[in-house]
């Protein structure tokens, strides 16, 4: 939902970043306001995951230029955990397995960290169990997954549902979902998309990173951005995604080639 008067949640200006000595982001510009759903598309290797990890504060990436403001504050100045507590959420393309750490315990500690930041009371084990059981329904996940170690031995689809469950518990203001749709069968895709739609509100915003139109058939984006070579090459409405589906990425490559020569 595009509303000109809505608050700006995230403002990325000329963001540049490298990993080790390799420049990857080469000047990304993107503004996200409350209520909006953005989609970022692009070939493998174009820098989509790097953008999401830089925003979340992964230590492997070094920001070499530009700025990111999150609700008016300098996002890049904050530790990853502070970003999360303030309502920035990253759904990982490859959720990490953590053997020996109980999923339930992990969910409770992270939910409480966010609640404290919002000035809400911490939930004890019992109150949290009630909350988590209610939120499990959003992703139609079996409660048995709560008893297991975080993501350990989960299938690809189960990991993605666990990401959306975390999103449902953490109640973020800006949710970045990195290829949450890839590797999902059509039923799982519906469940995940249903969860995202359910959680979207006029107060928060979603940035979907995806390759496929099929996700955008169920979640309608307000903006579609095409990323290539570490930049956003073009921005349009939902018809841009359909055009990509139709014409493929060759024209993007050609535009990028022209840009890189210049």
């Amino acid at each position, binding site marked *: 939902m595009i509303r000109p008067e809505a608050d700006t949640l995230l403002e990325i200006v000329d963001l540049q970043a490298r990993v080790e000595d390799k420049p990857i982001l080469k000047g990304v510009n993107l503004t996200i306001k409350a209520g909006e759903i953005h989609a970022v598309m692009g070939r493998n290797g174009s820098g989509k995951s790097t953008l999401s990890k830089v925003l979340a504060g992964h230590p492997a990436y070094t920001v070499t230029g530009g700025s990111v403001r999150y609700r008016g504050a300098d996002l890049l100045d904050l530790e990853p955990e502070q970003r999360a507590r303030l309502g920035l959420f990253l759904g990982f393309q490859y959720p990490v397995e953590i053997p020996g750490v109980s999923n339930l315990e992990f969910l409770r500690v992270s939910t409480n960290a*966010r609640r404290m930041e919002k000035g809400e009371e911490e939930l004890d084990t019992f109150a949290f169990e009630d909350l988590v059981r209610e939120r499990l329904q959003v992703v139609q996940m079996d409660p048995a997954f709560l008893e297991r170690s975080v993501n350990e031995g989960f299938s690809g689809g189960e990991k993605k549902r666990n990401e959306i469950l975390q999103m449902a518990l953490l109640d973020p203001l800006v949710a970045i979902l990195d290829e949450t749709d890839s590797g999902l069968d059509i039923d799982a895709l519906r469940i995940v998309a249903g969860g995202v739609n359910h959680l979207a509100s006029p107060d928060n915003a979603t940035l979907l990173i995806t390759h496929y139109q099929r996700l955008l058939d169920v979640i309608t984006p307000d903006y579609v951005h095409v990323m290539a070579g570490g930049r956003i090459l073009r921005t349009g409405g939902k018809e841009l995604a359909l055009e990509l589906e139709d014409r493929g990425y060759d024209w993007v490559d050609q535009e990028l080639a022209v840009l890189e020569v210049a």
Partner: protein
Amino acid sequence: MVAAMSNSAAVTASTWITNFLERLPAPAGELEAVQWRGREALSRQPLPSRRQEDWRFTDLAPLTALAPVPSPSSAQVGWPAPATDVFRLWLDAPDDFLNGQSLPAGLSLLSSDEVQQALGHTLAACNCEQHWPVELNQASATRVLALRVSGAVAPTLELVSQAAEDGVMRPVRVLLLLEEKASLEVLQIQLGSGCSLSSLVMEAHLGRESKLRHGLLALGEGQACFLGHLAVEQEPRSQLESVWASHGWALSRFEPRVVQVDGEATTTLKALQLADGQQLVDTHSRVEFRGPEGQLDQLHKAIADDRGRSVFNGAVKVPRAAQRTNASQLSRNLLLSNQARIDTKPELEIVADDVRCAHGATVSRLQTDELFYLQSRGLSAAVAAGLLKRGFCEEVLRALPAAAAAWRPLQRMLGED
């Protein structure tokens, strides 16, 4: 210069043992003869030194800084009440072990004739009856808890020893004979604090188709040192599961040794050891198959932080007679500081040709991606690291007998108590 230094170290070591022997009371009681032999051996045998391969990484300085005297204890400090399905024995009690209690069904004390006959048999079978820490125990232990196990014993047998006073030594000697088809769960708790020495020698003989679940929780503090030997003989189709966890000792040296006398038995070993501060924790394990179709599943985990040092040496012997042995050994280590050290070494001696032996060793830091994942959910770096450490430990700790939970091993090992 070097010669002079090692010379003076040798003098200190021999003085230490002379002083130790002088402080011992005269040999007496049921183990009198064993004490004589142990003292005799100690007076001839030098202290282990780092010139010996087996002691290469293990400096005995924390031990020689102590002046321990064996004595029975007078107090139980900080013990939880035993759970209902636990039969607890206090191994340092001033009176006899049982102190009026009667043993649960399936357990009986060996007669002194039987003790004479059986004591030391398994140590010899495991080739460690002359090891220095064993001789130190034999020189000082005045009694042995010697039990016969027949049938299935219902409660968990909990054996507790605590050395909480400066200058004491607690020599614990245990002998278990499991008859055919018998089964038993034992939890040993070894606690040490102050300038004390805990010494453990345990022998177990597992008859055919018998089953022993054994847990050892060795929790130290301060200058306390721990020396332990576990020797197990397994008859065919017996099952041994031994899980041990060690933390907090200035010096801890543990040597579990298992012999499958005719193969065909199952051995599961799991261990967790932690070293921080300037602690040194050392495990030298050895499993030997003397017949075909034996199985071993061994997992050894260690965490070294600060200037702590962890040593693991895992010997597995598979001679020609041990065809179709299936053995696996995995050593997983977490190095949490630049000054900490981890030395881990599998020592596989495989002569039989038709065997499956797998081994692996990893030493790693906390994984950046795991830490970041937790941080990206609002957990501070410190809390995230704590959770990862806990996850690492829990894999072993949850394999301890259930009775161990009352001693709060995780909280104590991670300093959360």
